[in-house]
């Protein structure tokens, strides 16, 4: 099987390897350059004592490379579309499944050989990408960016490997079910995008119960550092009741404070503070990054296992 898989896919493999090499090279050059810029900026800001805001203007001219790094999030979809979906569907479309499944190799073994190859390739690409991107992002992380944001969380750590495995198996299972490359391709993209949107927006924030913190309305900072992931912020009254979200903040606030609202008036925050109003912040602390990575990776790897199982069942259908 190894011989056949390599003979069939060596061109694809070499092309992917070439693209990967170019990407790693670009990331390495820009990564070194950005680290240099950052350290130079640290030196100059230390002289003027303005280091608090050093990250605000840094790298504003590096949009193209930042976009490129963020774009690596679509690589798992590409693996699913170009390698996963055609794996079985193209054989059926070209009729070659009837050639290959009548050699002295069971379909199960034929599929196993191909699955091992595609999973190995997906793992390799996932690892290469995430090592590169995680290394490249270290300067950003030093500045204290929120690493839970999609552009960061999804392309760093271990989740890119899990996504790559999931993308590959999603394409494979779609191809095994639909047996048409184009339909499998569309299904792969559709399911992958939908699932990712759902996970990022509705599932990921709840992997671990968020930390809740009350801070004074007049506090200089939010009390949550910039590398944490703020989920929800609202004002509660002295009894702890949320008065922001139901829109009756003005109606509910004491008369003494309401009088301070309006053009040219100040002091409404300190007034509310005196009456026991507080800012309630719900967030995921920065040190949960790896816990979240492990949980999300676990979810996608588990889905990949199910999809591989489905492909093994579907391959037994009539040719």
């Amino acid at each position, binding site marked *: 099987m190894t011989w*056949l898989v390599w003979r069939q896919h060596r061109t694809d493999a070499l092309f992917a390897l070439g693209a990967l090499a170019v990407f790693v090279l670009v990331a390495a050059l820009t990564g070194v350059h950005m680290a240099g810029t950052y350290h130079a900026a640290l030196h100059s800001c230390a002289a003027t004592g303005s280091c608090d805001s050093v990250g605000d203007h840094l790298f504003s001219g590096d949009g193209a490379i930042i976009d490129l790094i963020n774009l690596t999030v679509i690589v798992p979809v590409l693996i699913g579309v170009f390698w996963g979906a055609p794996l079985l569907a193209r054989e059926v479309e070209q009729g070659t499944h009837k050639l290959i499944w009548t050699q002295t190799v069971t379909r199960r073994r034929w599929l196993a050989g191909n699955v091992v190859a595609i999973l190995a390739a997906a793992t390799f690409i996932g690892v290469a990408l995430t090592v590169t991107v995680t290394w490249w992002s270290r300067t950003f992380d030093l500045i204290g960016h929120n690493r839970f944001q999609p552009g960061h969380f999804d392309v760093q750590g271990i989740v890119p490997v899990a996504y790559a495995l999931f993308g590959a198996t999603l394409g494979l299972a779609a191809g095994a079910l639909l047996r048409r490359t184009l339909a499998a391709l569309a299904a792969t993209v559709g399911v992958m995008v939908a699932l990712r949107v759902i996970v990022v927006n509705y599932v990921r924030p709840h992997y671990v119960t968020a930390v809740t913190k009350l801070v004074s309305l007049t506090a200089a900072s939010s009390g949550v550092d910039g590398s944490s992931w703020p989920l929800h912020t609202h004002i509660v009254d002295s009894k702890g009741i949320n008065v922001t979200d139901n829109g009756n903040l003005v109606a509910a606030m004491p008369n003494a404070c309401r009088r301070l609202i309006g053009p040219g008036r100040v002091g409404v925050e300190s007034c509310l503070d005196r009456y026991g109003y507080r800012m309630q912040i719900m967030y995921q602390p920065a040190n949960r990054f790896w816990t979240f990575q492990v949980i999300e990776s676990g979810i996608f790897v588990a889905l990949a296992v199910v999809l591989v199982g489905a492909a093994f069942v579907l391959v037994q259908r009539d040719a």
Partner: protein
Amino acid sequence: MTTRVAIAPVAIATHDLTKQYRAKTALSRCSIEVPEGSVSALVGANGTGKTTLLQILAGLSQATRGEAEVLGRAPTQDPAFLAEVGFLAQEIPLYRRMTANDHIGMGAHLNRRWDSAAARSRVESLDIPLDQPVGTLSGGQRAQVALTLALAKRPRVLLLDEPVAALDPLARRQFIAALGVAVADGDLTVLLSSHLVNDLERVCDHMVLLADSRPQLCGEIDTLLAEHKVLIGPRRDTSVIERAHTVVQAETTARQTTLLIRVRGPLIDPSWEVHDVALEELVLAYMGRAAELSRARQVMGAAG
């Protein structure tokens, strides 16, 4: 209607084999036997279940009901079964970007028995380039490469689905000749489907005739031809003949009656001119009869 001829041990046997797709019955209670060492033609119009039958025998499809046995084994995803059976699908599937050499190398990796040397020399002897992508070869050359692969596996049963359908007459003749040589070489049972009867007569000794998803005839071609006669005589009542023999086809003009019958006993009436029947004539007569029966059944079904 089916006659079983049991001479040699049976290589392929099916019993009440039925394949039902969602709305359509592709094969209905099909029972056939193919003796070992024979070259059998699987004949029938398009859509009569030839491909379905061959795919079930090759282990590519599952029957809905009934049994199939190839060399005493049910077709399964088992290397022991797969090793014995060679299959060439109608589409002549090959990897277009791979060369003939690549395909032979692939076979060597995927089969226990594999004769790479014989396959290469066979392709070379046909003047087919070994190192060109097969996508650049002609249809006839591709068919020869595909047949070479099927033979290189050294199967004991070879199933060929319409192997000559896409070929021009010369390539068709070459293919049939090549098949004849391959069969003469060893202990090989071949079942090949076609709707072109004349091509098959050259190489086949047995025939299975499918029509209306059912086998209509099954046996040695010489025997089948000997059992059938064409009777020509003046126009008259044919009930005497119908009682003694099976009338497959009857044609009546104003003056003359032509019958194709399966002979069940002595032909005594001297007023009939008795002729031998040609294979194509026989096949067409049975196909026509099956079509009529099918129509009659539909009418009865609609009436009932």
